[in-house]
């Protein structure tokens, strides 16, 4: 990258800089005119100069000028106006000039702003582009947060500076020079004095500022390191807490902040010292003018008029000069920042842009063998992890790599996957070096998966299809405003040197997944999810998600229809007691009392809490149903039990997780409340206290809590009160309860709850697993499985995929590679997080999947388990970074048989 910011700006904005310079020069004309005008107005129409009598007129807007040789040229003799007329006309001209000046300023500022923003966009893009082309070794050494701070924050001031980079010095320099020349013309000696002071300022101040620059650079580095450390703390919070090293981190951060403070304070001190000196020098000049100029005037060597003119002219000098010095400061500041950033991003060797050039055409299959030729790979410390390996994988061949962690097989696979670059030797396909081939070929025809997974924040489906998004494949047709916007986007992207690939286009390369379009892609997705045994996980995510039934009307209908199918199925399998269904006419013992009473769920718990406390509706209904007193008694019983059970436990005791009625913090409050109300009849208890007791009932489930509080009679009463709650619900409470209706989809409940339409019983330990299996089976038999699965693909995996387990992430990663149609698959122990049995199963399935049909891609698999070698054509065994055995599977097995016999 260009090491000097000024040159960088000049290269990319030359034309615009010249244009803005021209505009600025033009804007000077009305600017100076507007200086002159007030004098004309005061002298002319107001004081009457030029107007000899009351009726006298003067020409307005006369255009005439003197030309040498021609004499006076009169283009327009002007309008004759009287004093009032002239006053009005000149005032209007003044107003016009004000507007014109304003407009010029507006135009110049927006233009400069736009120029700066474009350049900022260009720099930022260029930096990210370089990150995408960094060699792999370099990326291991830099902290991501530091890179992002550089791109986000540190280049920011460069945009602001761009507009001023050339205009400002030209303008201010011009002004200062004009003033200086004027002074020189008035009085040579005084002019020399002014020039000397200016020179002193111009020499000393920048020198003093060098220290400022050093400090500025340190400030930038320490701030960047701080952001790196903070992100490290966030990423490593688990490790920090587990090892009780939080105070070490505190100390580290405090020390860093102290250092930053020291630098910044130093910076302030210098800055204001420089400012002081600068101001002093600016002010010392008039002192010299007054003293020396005055002395000259007294001596009679200088006339007073000249002195006044010089002092007047000097007023215009310090302003531009100061701004010029400030500009220079800003220039050096951004130059330092720029140089810093450029240094970090100037890494050799960067990947050639041609290698990553976009290609919308499908890559032709690779016909040559993938081979390592005399390959050595070194780790960061420089020691060789793989030495002088030559290994060839023919198209269609399956090669297992064994030898354990220190063997070197993993390093070889990483080199094949282009995660590391060879120290010596080459990796070739046919005759071509893999690093010279475009990524559009090797990145598509070779698939790589390891146990080191990166999942992007977004949906599970997006992550699964990530490996297919090579290029925008469709041309999106925009209409109306969006078309205009798209055109604007294209122009702007071009002006800022950004690519104009359309993010809204369909980037998914269906052919690369062996599908023809979006419609049959799902079959492939389903197939790979099955292979990596992720279907059930995805389905589990799907059934736990809530959907909007108005958006998926047909699907919601099918789910509702499934309810009866589930009942029949459970009856047929004699498992009816697994789920207790919601029946409008009977009490559901596995659901809470609250659910039974409302016969629905609360959709907005905050409003519900408020309503429970303040709305008279609940109390009146409870009273009318004869439940008020019963519930109060029941609540008391619950409170007594809970307080007795949990009173002695510390608030962080894990048993509190089992407590649903109240939080650990509320226990003392309820203890006090019990003391207060114990033995009193309900009438004497205050309303608030009664409600606090009664609300405890709502969470009670008899089979779970087993306090023995629900009688047949009470259940009957609760069921009878349901109608009152649903029919009599006042208008201001509508919407906080969603009622259970056997024929309607409940938007606030998950898909699974909608299928069950009931609660899973507590009696069976594995009840929920069994139900899940049955529901899964039902989905399959009713042809709903894929429809449900789609909702699972919408699951947001979180930053870095953290909402998935590490096993799920690795499965996803493997699926991401399998869904791509490639010629070579390199699997570098992709499933380490799983247990051995599952690893074996998935490996076999993946093998079957890749060997299915016409396709016969080559497979290179770094195996942890020796038993699986039977699947492969060849086994390459590594020890200490060297290939010690490379033999076909059959001979190897007979060989070992022989050895066994011999021993």
């Amino acid at each position, binding site marked *: 990258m260009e090491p000097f910011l000024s040159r960088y700006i000049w290269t990319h904005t030359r034309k615009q800089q010249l244009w803005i310079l021209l505009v600025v020069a033009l804007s000077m004309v009305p600017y100076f005119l507007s200086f002159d005008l007030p004098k004309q107005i005061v002298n002319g129409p107001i004081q009457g100069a030029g107007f000899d009598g009351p009726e006298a007129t003067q020409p307005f807007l006369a255009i005439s000028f003197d030309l040498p040789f021609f004499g006076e040229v009169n283009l327009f003799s002007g309008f004759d106006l009287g004093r009032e007329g002239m006053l009005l006309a000149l005032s209007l001209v003044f107003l016009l000039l004000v507007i014109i000046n304003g407009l010029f300023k507006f135009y110049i500022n927006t233009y400069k702003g736009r120029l700066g923003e474009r350049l900022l966009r260009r720099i930022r893009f260029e930096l990210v582009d370089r990150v995408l082309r960094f060699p792999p070794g370099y990326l291991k050494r830099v902290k991501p947060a530091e890179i992002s701070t550089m791109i986000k924050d540190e280049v920011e001031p460069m945009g602001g500076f761009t507009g001023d980079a050339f205009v400002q010095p030209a303008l201010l320099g011009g002004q200062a020079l004009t003033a200086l020349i004027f002074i020189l013309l008035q009085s040579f000696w005084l002019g020399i004095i002014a020039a000397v002071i200016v020179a002193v300022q111009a020499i000393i101040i920048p020198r003093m500022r060098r220290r400022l620059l050093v400090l500025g650079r340190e400030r930038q580095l320490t701030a960047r390191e701080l952001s790196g450390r903070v992100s490290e703390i966030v990423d490593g919070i688990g490790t920090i807490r587990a090892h009780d090293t939080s105070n070490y981190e505190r100390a580290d951060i405090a020390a860093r902040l102290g250092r930053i403070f020291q630098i910044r304070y130093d910076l302030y001190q210098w800055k204001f010292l420089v400012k002081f000196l600068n101001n002093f020098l600016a002010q010392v000049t008039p002192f010299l003018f007054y003293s020396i100029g005055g002395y000259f005037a007294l001596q009679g060597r200088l006339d007073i008029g000249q002195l006044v003119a010089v002092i007047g002219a000097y007023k215009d000098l310090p302003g531009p000069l100061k701004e010029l010095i400030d500009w220079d400061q800003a220039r050096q500041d951004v130059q330092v920042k720029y140089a810093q950033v450029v240094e970090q991003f100037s890494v050799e060797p960067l990947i050639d842009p041609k290698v990553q050039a976009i290609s919308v055409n499908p890559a032709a299959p690779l016909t040559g063998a993938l081979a390592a030729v005399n390959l050595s790979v070194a780790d960061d410390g420089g020691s060789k992890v793989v030495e002088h390996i030559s290994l060839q994988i023919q198209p269609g061949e399956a090669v297992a790599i064994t030898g354990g962690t220190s063997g070197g097989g993993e390093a070889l696979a990483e080199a094949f996957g282009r995660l590391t670059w060879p120290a010596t030797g080459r990796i070739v396909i046919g005759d071509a070096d893999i690093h010279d081939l475009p990524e559009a070929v090797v990145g598509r025809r070779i698939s790589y998966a390891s146990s080191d997974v990166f999942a992007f924040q977004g949906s599970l489906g997006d992550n699964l299809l990530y490996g297919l998004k090579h290029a925008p494949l469709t041309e999106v047709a925009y209409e109306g405003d969006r078309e205009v916007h798209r055109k604007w986007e294209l122009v702007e992207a071009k002006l800022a040197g950004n690519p104009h690939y359309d993010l809204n286009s369909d980037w998914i390369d269906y052919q690369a997944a062996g599908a023809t379009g979006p419609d049959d892609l799902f079959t492939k997705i389903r197939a790979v999810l099955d292979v990596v045994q992720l279907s059930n996980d995805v389905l589990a995510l799907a059934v736990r998600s809530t959907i909007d039934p108005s958006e998926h009307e047909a699907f919601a209908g099918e789910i509702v229809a499934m309810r009866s199918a589930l009942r029949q199925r459970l009856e047929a399998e004699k498992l009816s007691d697994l789920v207790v269904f919601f029946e409008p006419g009977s009490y559901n013992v596995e659901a809470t009392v609250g659910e039974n009473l409302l016969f629905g769920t609360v959709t907005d718990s905050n409003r519900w809490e408020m309503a429970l406390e303040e709305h008279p509706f609940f109390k009146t209904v409870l009273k009318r149903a004869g439940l008020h007193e019963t519930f109060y008694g029941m609540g008391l019983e619950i409170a007594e039990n809970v307080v007795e059970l949990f009173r002695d436990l510390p608030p962080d005791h894990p048993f509190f997780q089992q407590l649903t009625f109240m939080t650990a913090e509320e226990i003392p409050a309820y203890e006090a409340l019990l003391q207060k109300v114990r033995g009193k009849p309900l009438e004497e208890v205050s309303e608030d206290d009664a409600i606090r007791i009664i609300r405890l009932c709502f969470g009670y489930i008899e089979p779970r*809590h087993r306090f023995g509080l629900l009688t047949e009679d009470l259940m009957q009463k609760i069921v009878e009160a349901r109608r009152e709650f649903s029919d009599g619900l006042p208008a201001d409470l509508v919407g906080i309860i969603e009622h259970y209706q056997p024929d309607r989809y409940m938007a606030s409940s998950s898909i699974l709850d909608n299928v069950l339409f009931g609660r899973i019983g507590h009696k069976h330990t594995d009840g929920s697993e069994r139900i899940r299996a049955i529901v899964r089976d039902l989905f399959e038999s009713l042809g709903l499985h894929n429809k449900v699965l789609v909702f699972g693909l919408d699951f947001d995996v979180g930053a870095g995929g953290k909402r998935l387990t590490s096993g799920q992430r690795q499965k996803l990663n493997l699926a991401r590679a399998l869904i791509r149609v490639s010629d070579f698959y390199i699997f570098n122990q992709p499933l380490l997080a799983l247990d051995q049995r599952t690893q074996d199963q998935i490996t076999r399935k993946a093998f079957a999947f890749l060997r299915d049909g016409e396709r016969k891609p080559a497979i290179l698999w770094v195996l942890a388990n020796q038993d699986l070698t039977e699947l492969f054509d060849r086994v390459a065994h590594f020890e200490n970074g060297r290939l010690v055995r490379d033999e076909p599977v059959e001979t190897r097995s007979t060989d070992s048989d022989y050895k066994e016999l011999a021993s």
Partner: protein
Amino acid sequence: MLLKDEVEMLRRITLFSGLPPAKLKLLAFTSDRVMYSAGEDLFNQGDIGDAAYVILSGNADVLVSTPNGQLKVAEVEQNSIVGEIAILCNTPRTATVKTTTALEALRIRKDDFLKLLADFPEMAVEIMRVLADRLSQTTSELTEARSRVQRAEA
């Protein structure tokens, strides 16, 4: 069956008999009541142990798999506890427990059980006593078996 009945049941188990009733109630409250029909497995040999079971009613067989199929080594009935070894030593289940009648049990989760042990050392001592009892019994059985083998070889 209610919480207080469960407390009564727990009290009859030697392991828990020394605990104050309030703690037994807490133990019962934090545990799950589970039901099995005849012929179901509470857990299988080799599983990871995640809970112990107190049999409230019904009977079950303790089975160990041997090369010659499953061997019944013991029988458990009302008021006994099974599965505590696996959650104490973090080992896989040493045996399979299969119900012979309909069975009702209290399932005490591992974390809760360990927490109780930590909170009530007298319970830990009791556990030690029960285990030591079992060990001495096993040792004597082993001695007997060995001597029988020796006699047979001789």
